[in-house]
């Protein structure tokens, strides 16, 4: 174990990966979030990866109770939370145990040695104290008694020992802010606000924060602490904030409602990791948003269908198991051709699976998972910020094409934060819909008379005089809207429902190459939250001189009209996915291309390295004959 930390006054770094880890009771997520905020304010680009246990409060000291928050930040563009941390903060033995395997050799590990009691060591499954044996020889270790330092710092406030130790995270945060030259003020503001009603706790936390910072500054040890400076990133001018995918989805839906001039009705049932969207929208009632916590996911989607039928924008949201329950009702929405937005924040499956972990394994379900021929539009968001735009896009398609739209995100982007250039609502174009103006349609009225371009049917809602009609899930006559068992009509309506969805492709922008040239040896095709990892891997590969490009799909069904052509410009196609190969199926079915898969189903995002290795392997192979 190397404790002689090299001294370095403001060592300049290009990018750093820091991982905070501790017991779920240690307030790690708060620490991480605040560090991220301060980092954003320091002008760095960043990406985060919160990773916490499924238990609300797992028993203290256990490995399964470890909560972690990883952040990568830097002077250049940062798109993932980083493969391997440069710095680990471990607030107890279990946190060290769980996170050590992820560390690169030579990384800096900051440890609260005060928590390394025999009982905690045993709970973490250490046979001997890693501070005393050779467990940590490959790393730089800074073992401080953070517990004691915190207790000393907050001593004046007369807290109980338990309460006092709760400030440990702020002490640690103070030290980290010093180490990476981040401002303390936003954290102090936040504490002041959060504990407004409890001034003692507020002051104790601020004192701990300041003490941690002062510790760095005064370096009470026999050695110098390292200190780093990471230059601000150069980004587009504008106002910025950090945003998580859940926030951005909620705001996107709200913005779409405003731009459509319609009420948003959000029917949902809580489920991890989808609930934060409900929580955010529930607070936004003043924006003509009604949230409804239904009795289950079926009632949630049904209430949203009812809302759409009545003329609002019906939205429902869940994750895998809940989306599964919505399957039957989705068929109804498709059959009666009402606008509807269905958000799936994917998580590890099958079944209850890994509720707090990320995965992309619901693409099959989104595209194919219904009885009958029941095509629907499917979109996916790529980053937390992209959630805002994709939510608006989903709503736009739903309203302009009178179709249900599935919007896929996942546990990773739902929780991860990134700096986001805050849009101006006035810059967002308005969204049209198919409600007839008064008198525009006169009886006899066929609810399935279609717009010739989009094939959308008119959106006649109860309350409109003289246009009373009946709809339902039985097959309807294309001519009258009445029930029809006629074989030819069923054929026609089935084809119309397909065609209507296919036509959406005419109204979406052509697919672009996200990075790289329009032709080359290899194209890496991704979708959803793997954006960052693929982008960085492709950039690295290109910097090695490889002819690799990156295409990232927002529109998964229908696929962009020009995608086939684009793919034809490359010798090989690599599809990395956090599933067993679901987009791969789509591409093979549609383009008969021999795509190569990179599949990871571990509840974790891709590491850049994993994608890069797959690129190397793919390029090393003989190029397949054009049409093999």
């Amino acid at each position, binding site marked *: 174990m190397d404790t002689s930390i090299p001294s370095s006054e403001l060592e300049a770094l290009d990018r750093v990966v820091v991982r905070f880890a501790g017991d779920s009771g240690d307030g790690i997520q708060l620490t991480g979030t605040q560090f991220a905020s301060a980092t954003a304010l*320091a002008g760095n680009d960043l990406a985060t990866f919160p990773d916490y246990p499924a238990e609300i409060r797992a028993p203290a000291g256990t490995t399964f109770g470890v909560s972690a928050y990883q952040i990568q930040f830097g002077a250049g563009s940062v798109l993932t939370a980083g493969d391997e941390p440069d710095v680990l903060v471990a607030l107890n033995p279990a946190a060290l145990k769980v996170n050590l395997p992820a560390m690169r050799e030579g990384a800096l590990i900051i440890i609260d040695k005060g928590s390394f009691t025999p009982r905690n060591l045993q709970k973490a499954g250490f046979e001997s104290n890693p501070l005393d044996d050779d467990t940590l020889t490959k790393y730089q270790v800074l073992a401080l008694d953070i517990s004691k330092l915190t207790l000393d710092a907050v001593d004046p406030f007369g807290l109980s020992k338990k309460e006092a130790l709760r400030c440990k995270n702020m002490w640690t945060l103070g030290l980290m802010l010093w180490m990476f030259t981040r401002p303390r003020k936003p954290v102090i503001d936040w504490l002041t606000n959060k504990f407004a009603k409890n001034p003692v706790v507020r002051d104790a936390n601020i004192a701990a924060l300041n003490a941690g910072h002062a510790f760095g500054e005064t370096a009470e040890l026999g050695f110098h602490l390292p200190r780093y400076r990471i230059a601000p990133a*150069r980004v587009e001018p504008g*106002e910025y904030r950090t945003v998580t995918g859940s926030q951005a989805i909620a705001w996107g839906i709200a913005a779409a409602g405003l731009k459509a001039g319609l009420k948003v009705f959000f029917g949902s049932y809580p489920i991890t990791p989808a609930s934060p969207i409900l929580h955010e929208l529930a607070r936004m009632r003043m924006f003509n948003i009604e949230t409804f916590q239904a009795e289950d996911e*079926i*009632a949630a989607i049904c209430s949203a269908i*009812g809302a759409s039928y009545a003329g609002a924008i019906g939205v429902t949201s869940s994750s895998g198991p809940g989306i599964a329950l919505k399957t039957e009702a989705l068929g*109804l929405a498709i059959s009666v051709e009402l606008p509807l937005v269905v958000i799936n924040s994917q998580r590890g499956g099958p079944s209850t699976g890994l509720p707090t972990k990320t995965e992309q394994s619901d693409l099959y379900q989104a595209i194919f998972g219904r009885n009958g021929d029941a095509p629907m539009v499917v979109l996916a968001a790529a980053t937390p910020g992209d959630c805002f735009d994709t939510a608006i896009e989903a709503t736009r398609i739903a309203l302009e094409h009178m179709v249900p739209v599935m919007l896929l995100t996942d546990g990773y982007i739902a929780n991860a934060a990134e700096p986001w250039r805050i849009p101006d609502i006035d810059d967002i174009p308005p969204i049209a819909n198919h409600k007839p103006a008064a008198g525009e349609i006169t009886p006899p009225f066929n609810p399935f008379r279609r717009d010739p371009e989009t094939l959308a049917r008119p959106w006649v809602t109860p309350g409109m005089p003289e246009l*009373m009609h009946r709809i*339902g899930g039985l097959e309807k006559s294309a001519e009258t809207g009445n029930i029809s068992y006629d074989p030819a009509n069923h054929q026609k309506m089935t084809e119309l429902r397909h065609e209507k969805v296919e036509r959406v492709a005419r109204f979406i922008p052509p697919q672009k190459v996200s990075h790289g040239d329009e032709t080359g040896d290899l194209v890496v095709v991704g979708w959803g939250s793997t954006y960052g990892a693929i982008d960085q891997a492709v950039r690295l590969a290109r910097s090695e001189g490889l002819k690799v490009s990156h295409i990232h799909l927002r529109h998964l069904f229908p696929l962009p009209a020009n995608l086939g052509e684009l793919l034809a410009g490359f010798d090989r196609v690599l599809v990395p996915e956090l599933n067993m190969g679901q987009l791969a199926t789509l591409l093979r079915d549609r383009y008969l291309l021999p795509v190569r898969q990179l599949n990871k189903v571990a509840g974790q995002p891709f590491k850049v390295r994993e994608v890069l290795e797959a690129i190397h392997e793919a390029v090393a192979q003989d190029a397949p004959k054009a049409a093999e």
Partner: protein
Amino acid sequence: MNKPVKLSPKDFASDQEVRWCPGCGDYAILKGVQRTLAEIGADPATTVFVSGIGCSSRFPYYMATYGFHTIHGRAPAIATGIKLVNPKLDVWVITGDGDGLSIGGNHLLHALRRNVDLNIMLFNNEIYGLTKGQYSPTSEPGTRSPSTPYGSIDTPVSPCAFALGAKGRFIARTIDTHQKHLPDVLKRAHAHAGTSFIEIFQNCIVYNDGVFDDFAERSVRDERTIEVRHGEPLIFGTARDKGLRVDPTACRLTVVEIGKDGISESDILVHDETNPHLAQMLIEMRGPDFPVAIGVIHCIEGETYAEAYEAQTREILKKSGEPDFNSWIRRGHVWTVGKDGAHPEPAAE
């Protein structure tokens, strides 16, 4: 078409041919509903019928109002979305004993406890009509049906008891062919703000013919049912010579004969539709010892879900003032990057 000042029952009939079996009790209910709507002066453009799946659930197709024939069991949930988005609509839910109490029991429970202002009519024929006669959750034990060829063995659920247990605030019962009674009950249901639950004994002539004949059949009806009315004594019988009382130590209802054992009309319990305990006792009554209670068994006022929601929204808007989306998404830490793309150095600490 100009809206006529007063519509007749026929004006509420759609142009679709009615497709129930000849003799089905649903016809009588359809007639009763069309009459009721005409009598209350309903506007077809603001009236919506929402149903699930079943013979009964074909109902909306035959009404010249808005109509949504949805999926099995889910009508209360869909109707909830409709009503919450547009509280001005008159929303009627049509369901069956299978649709409402088998697959749809949970949505019924939650609509009732939330007190969404819906009028829910449950056509109880104690059988699955549309799928050809399997027993339903309201079928009597011993019912032989294609799925229970040796007789069913489960205790049926009582729709009104269930509704009461679900905190239903308006619970009523009527009979398909009782054309004097049915519209009256529907009018009360319509007038009630909040979820109104109406169980209608409906005869399925094909798969369960005559299952309610012991009390609903015209010739025995007066003797075997009791039409309850708030504030009136609970008297029944063709000769109106029988009444109900509570035995306080046993905490149960008893039937007494007026004029016998010195019992007079004034000794008879007066119906109090606001009392859930009395409601429970009335709901449970069944022959041969007791008459079957029909009419408005339970009714208490209370804020509806939409009313409470709107009151709350007004408060919120009062506090929030004119909401500004741009500021909403700028709450918390916001920083500005200048034209040159450079970021101000963090304040030296």
